C-alpha cells in the first residue's frame, strides 16, 4: 500500500502522529494541534484513553510555579521557608505530557523557559508537549522557538466529524531503539525531499528520520521500509513546506496519489535512478499532504511567506522595568520586584499587636526579635514604561499616485527604518492598489525584511482607499491590543475610486473612505496624512479632517524632505501627548 493513499484525511494523520509522538515523546518534542473544535477534543480524549497523562499548563503560569521556588505567602504564614515545586518537575516525575492551551498567545518568555528546560536536561523534563493552537490568522501562531522543536504540525480546522476516534494500535514488542538506522539511500532521499519542499533547518531532518523509525516500530518491524519514509515525509515535512516541489504538472489541485513515480524532478543531479524513484515517491507523498490553501498563499505572494513570522516584540509589563512609580501591595512574583523598605514600613506599626496576638512578650530592647510579617504587608514596585511605538505606513500605490511619488515614499520609509535601531520603534507597511490592500510588512525592526518588502512593492491600478484605511485600522487595533502604541502615516492623494467591496465608482469609494477615516478617528489613533498628489486638491485635507489627522502637503518633496517632515510631525505629536 502506498501511504499517500490516506493523505487527504487530516484527522487520521493527526491520530497517527499522536501515536508516533507517544512512542518517543522526548525525541519528537511535541505536537501542534491547530484549530479548536470537537475533533480536537476527541483526539485529546483518544490520547488520554491511550494511557497518557496530560498536565495542563495555563498560559499565565509564573516562574515560581513553573520552575519552583520559595512560596512566599506560605513561608510568611508558617515562619519558615516553604519551597514549592515547579510544574515542570512535577510533570516530569509523573511522566506527564504538557498540554499548552491557547498556544498562539503564549508569551515568548514562557516559550524560552520551556525550551530551556527541555534542552538542558531532557531526562528531568516532561514527556513532550501538545500545543493547542486556536489561531485563525496566519500570524497567530505559537512562538517559533516552540514550533521549531515540535515534530508534528497538525491542522484540524478542516477535519470532518467522525464518530469513533482512536489511536492506531502499537505493536508492543518493538521500540524505536530496535529499529536499524535508515540506510544511506533513504537518508539522501529524505534530504532531497526536504530541499525540494524548501524545508530549511536541520531539526526537520532529524525529526523525519526519527518518525520513520517510530513508524517502523509501530508496525513491529526492525528495518525502515519505504512506507515509513512516506509517512514521515507526510507528517513532518509536508506541513513545513515553503514551496511546491517543481514537478512538471503544477496544477493547483494536489495530484491524486498513484503508485507510479512522478514524471521528473530536476532538483538534484547526483543521485542514481534508484534513489530518484524513492525520492519521487516521497515528494509525491508530501505533495498530497500539503494543505490546499498553502498553494494559494505561495502562488499569490512569496514576500508574505517571509512575513508570517511572529518575531515581534513581546507584551510589556509595567511591573518589571521603566521609571519607578511607587509601590502597591502585592506578592513579588512573576518578575515583580519586592519593595523591601515599603514592606517593612507597612509591617512595623503592627508589631506590638501581632506579638501580643502570638502571645510573645514585648522585648524592650527589641534585640533578637524577628519582625512578624504577613502576606498583606508585602509591597511590590511599580514602574512606568513607555509602550513601544509602531509606525504603520499606509501607502497609496495606485496609478493616480504617480510612480515617482511612490519611489519617494519608499525612500522615506527606508530612511525611517534606518533610524529604527536608534529609537527602537517598529515599522509596518500596508500598500493599497488595484482592488485591495495588502500588508506587505508586519511590524518589524528588521532592515533586511523591510528593504525586501519595499523593493517588491508594485505600483499602478485603482485606488481602494477605504480598504487601505480599514486594514491600517485593523493592524493598529492589533498593535494596541498588544500594549504598544500605533501611529498611522497615510501617503495618498485622497482620491479613492474603488469602493470597500472592490467595485469601481468614485462616489461610493469616497463615501467608504470617509467612513473608514471616521472609524480611525473614533479609535483615537494618532495619524498623519501626507498628500502626495502632484497638484494638491481638496481630497487629502478632507480625508485628514475626517480622520482627525494632521495634514502635510508635499507637492515637491523628495525622500529626505518627506522623512524630515514625518520625523518632525511625530516628534511634535509625542510632545503633545506627553
Amino acid at each position, binding site marked *: 500500500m502506498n501511504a499517500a493513499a490516506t493523505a487527504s484525511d487530516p484527522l487520521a494523520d493527526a491520530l497517527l502522529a499522536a501515536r508516533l509522538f507517544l512512542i518517543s515523546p522526548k525525541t519528537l518534542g511535541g505536537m501542534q494541534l491547530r484549530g479548536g473544535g470537537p475533533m480536537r477534543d476527541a483526539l485529546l480524549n483518544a490520547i488520554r484513553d491511550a494511557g497518557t497523562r496530560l498536565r495542563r499548563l495555563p498560559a499565565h503560569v509564573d516562574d515560581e510555579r513553573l520552575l519552583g521556588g520559595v512560596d512566599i505567602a506560605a513561608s*510568611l504564614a508558617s*515562619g519558615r521557608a516553604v519551597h514549592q515545586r515547579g510544574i515542570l518537575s512535577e510533570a516530569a516525575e509523573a511522566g506527564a505530557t504538557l498540554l499548552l492551551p491557547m498556544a498562539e498567545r503564549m508569551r515568548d518568555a514562557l516559550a524560552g523557559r520551556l525550551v*530551556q528546560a527541555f534542552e538542558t536536561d531532557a531526562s528531568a523534563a516532561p514527556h513532550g508537549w501538545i500545543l493547542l493552537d486556536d489561531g485563525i490568522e496566519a500570524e497567530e501562531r505559537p512562538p517559533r522557538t516552540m514550533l521549531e522543536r515540535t515534530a508534528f504540525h497538525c491542522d484540524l480546522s478542516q477535519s470532518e466529524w467522525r464518530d469513533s476516534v482512536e489511536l492506531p494500535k502499537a505493536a508492543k514488542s518493538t521500540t524505536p531503539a530496535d529499529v536499524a538506522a535508515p540506510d544511506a539511500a533513504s537518508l539522501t532521499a529524505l*534530504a532531497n525531499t526536504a530541499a525540494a519542499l524548501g524545508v530549511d533547518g536541520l531539526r*526537520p531532518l*532529524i525529526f523525519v528520520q526519527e518518525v520513520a523509525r517510530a513508524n517502523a516500530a509501530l508496525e513491529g518491524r526492525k528495518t525502515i521500509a519505504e512506507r515509513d519514509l512516506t509517512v514521515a515525509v507526510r507528517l513532518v515535512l509536508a506541513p513545513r513546506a515553503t514551496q511546491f516541489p517543481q514537478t512538471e504538472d503544477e496544477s493547483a489541485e494536489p495530484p491524486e496519489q498513484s503508485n507510479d513515480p512522478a514524471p521528473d524532478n530536476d532538483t538534484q543531479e547526483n543521485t542514481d535512478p534508484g534513489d530518484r524513484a524513492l525520492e519521487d515517491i516521497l515528494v509525491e507523498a508530501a505533495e498530497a499532504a500539503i494543505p490546499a490553501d498553502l498553494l494559494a498563499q505561495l502562488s499569490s505572494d512569496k514576500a508574505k511567506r517571509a512575513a508570517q513570522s511572529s518575531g515581534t516584540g513581546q507584551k510589556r509589563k509595567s511591573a518589571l522595568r521603566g521609571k519607578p512609580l511607587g509601590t502597591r501591595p502585592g506578592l513579588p512574583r512573576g518578575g515583580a520586584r*519586592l519593595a523591601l523598605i515599603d514592606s517593612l514600613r507597612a509591617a512595623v506599626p503592627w508589631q506590638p499587636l501581632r506579638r501580643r496576638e502570638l502571645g510573645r512578650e514585648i522585648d524592650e530592647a527589641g534585640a533578637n526579635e524577628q519582625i512578624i510579617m504577613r502576606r498583606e504587608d508585602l509591597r511590590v514596585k511599580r514602574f512606568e514604561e513607555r509602550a513601544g511605538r509602531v509606525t504603520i505606513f499606509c501607502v497609496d500605490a495606485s496609478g493616480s499616485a504617480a510612480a515617482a511619488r511612490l519611489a519617494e515614499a519608499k525612500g522615506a520609509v527606508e530612511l525611517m527604518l534606518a533610524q529604527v535601531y536608534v529609537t527602537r520603534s517598529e515599522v509596518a507597511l500596508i500598500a493599497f492598489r488595484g482592488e485591495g490592500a495588502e500588508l506587505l510588512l508586519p511590524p518589524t525592526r528588521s532592515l533586511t525584511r523591510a*528593504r525586501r518588502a519595499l523593493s517588491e512593492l508594485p505600483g499602478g491600478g485603482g485606488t481602494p482607499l477605504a480598504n487601505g484605511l480599514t486594514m491600517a485600522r485593523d493592524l493598529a487595533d492589533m498593535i494596541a491590543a498588544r500594549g504598544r502604541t500605533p501611529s498611522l502615516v497615510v501617503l495618498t492623494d485622497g482620491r479613492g475610486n474603488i469602493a470597500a467591496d472592490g467595485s469601481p465608482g468614485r462616489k461610493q469609494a469616497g463615501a467608504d473612505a470617509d467612513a473608514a477615516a471616521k472609524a480611525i478617528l473614533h479609535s483615537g489613533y494618532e495619524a498623519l496624512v501626507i498628500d502626495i498628489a502632484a497638484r494638491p486638491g481638496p481630497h487629502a485635507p478632507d480625508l485628514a479632517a475626517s480622520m482627525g489627522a494632521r495634514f502635510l502637503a508635499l507637492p515637491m518633496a523628495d525622500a529626505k524632505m518627506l522623512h524630515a517632515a514625518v520625523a518632525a510631525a511625530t516628534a511634535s505629536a509625542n510632545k503633545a501627548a506627553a
Partner: protein
Amino acid sequence: MARFPFSAIVGQDEMKQALLIAAIEPAIGGVMVFGDRGTGKSTAARALAGLLPPIPAVEDCRYGCTGEQRGTCPDPCTSGRVRKRAVPFVDLPLGATEDRVIGALDLEKALRAGEKSFEPGLLAKAHRGFLYIDEINLLEDHLVDLLLDVAASGENVVEREGLSVRHRAKFVLIGSGNPEEGELRPQLLDRFGLSVEVSTPTEIDQRVEIMRRCGEQERDAHAFAESWAGEEDKILRKVARGKSKLAKMETPDAIMQDAAELCMAVGADGLRGELTLMRAARAEAALAGAKAVQRKHLIAVAPSALRHRLRRDVLDETGSTVRIARAIDELFG
C-alpha cells in the same frame, strides 16, 4: 544526557574556529553568531563547554572562586576544599528578568531574618564559563547593555535595593540571532569580538551526514560519544597547546601594519576592530601551532573580526563579507 561531541558537528567551520579562539583568548570579547534557526549554534557552544576540562573551584562557592581567591567573593566562601567542576554553560532564556541575570536581594533571608543578603544570578553562575544567549536581538535592550558591560569589564557590580555587591563575572559571551527578525544596535554589535554567519548546509551530502550522526547519537549517545573520543582529544590538545603558545606569541610589526591597513580599507569604525583583529590573529596562530603571527592567520580571521563593524549604508546591499574579501584581495592579493 550525553552531549553532542564538538568534533562531530558537520561543517560550520567558521563558527567552530571562532568558538575555539574565544575559548583560548577570553579577551576577544564574545562571539556573535548570525544565522538561521536550527543550524547547530547552541549545540556547538554547549559541546565546546562540555569538552573543556573541568576547572578547580572552592567547594560550594556560589561564585566559582579558585583556590587562591578563597574568601574574596561576596559570600565569602570558607571551605578549605577545592573541587573540580564542569565548565559552566549558562543558557540565558529570552524574557529573563534583570533580577535573575545580575542577582537580587535574597527575599527569604530578608523577610525571615531581616538580613540583607545577595542572591547571585546567572552572571555569577557563568563565571569562568560560557554565557549563551539565543536570539539576542529579541532580548530587552537594557539587558543586552548590561550583559555586554559585564562581559567587557569582567565584573558584575550591583547597586540597588540597598545592596552594594561586586563579584567576578568573566565569561565568554555567545550571542546568536537572525537578522531577519530585528537588528542589533551597532554600538552593541561592536562590543562583540567576533561575528560569524552560519547557514543551513545546502549540499545534500552534508545534510545526509548530519542526519546520520544525529540518528546515531539519538540511538546510543554513549557509544556515539565513545566513537568520537579520539577526535575530541585532539581538540582538547589543540586548545591546551593554543593556550600555552598564545602567551609567547610574537607579533611582527609588518603584521600590525597589515591589520591597520585592512581596517582602513574596509572602513571599520573605531579602534576596537583593529585590536580584536590582532588578538584573533594571534589566537588563530596559536591554535595552528605557529610561533609568530603570519599574514595568512590575519586573513583567516579578518571576516569574523570585522564583518559586524563596517559602517552600514541602508541603501547598499553589498554584504559585509564581500566587502572584506574585496579589500583583502586588493591589499594582499
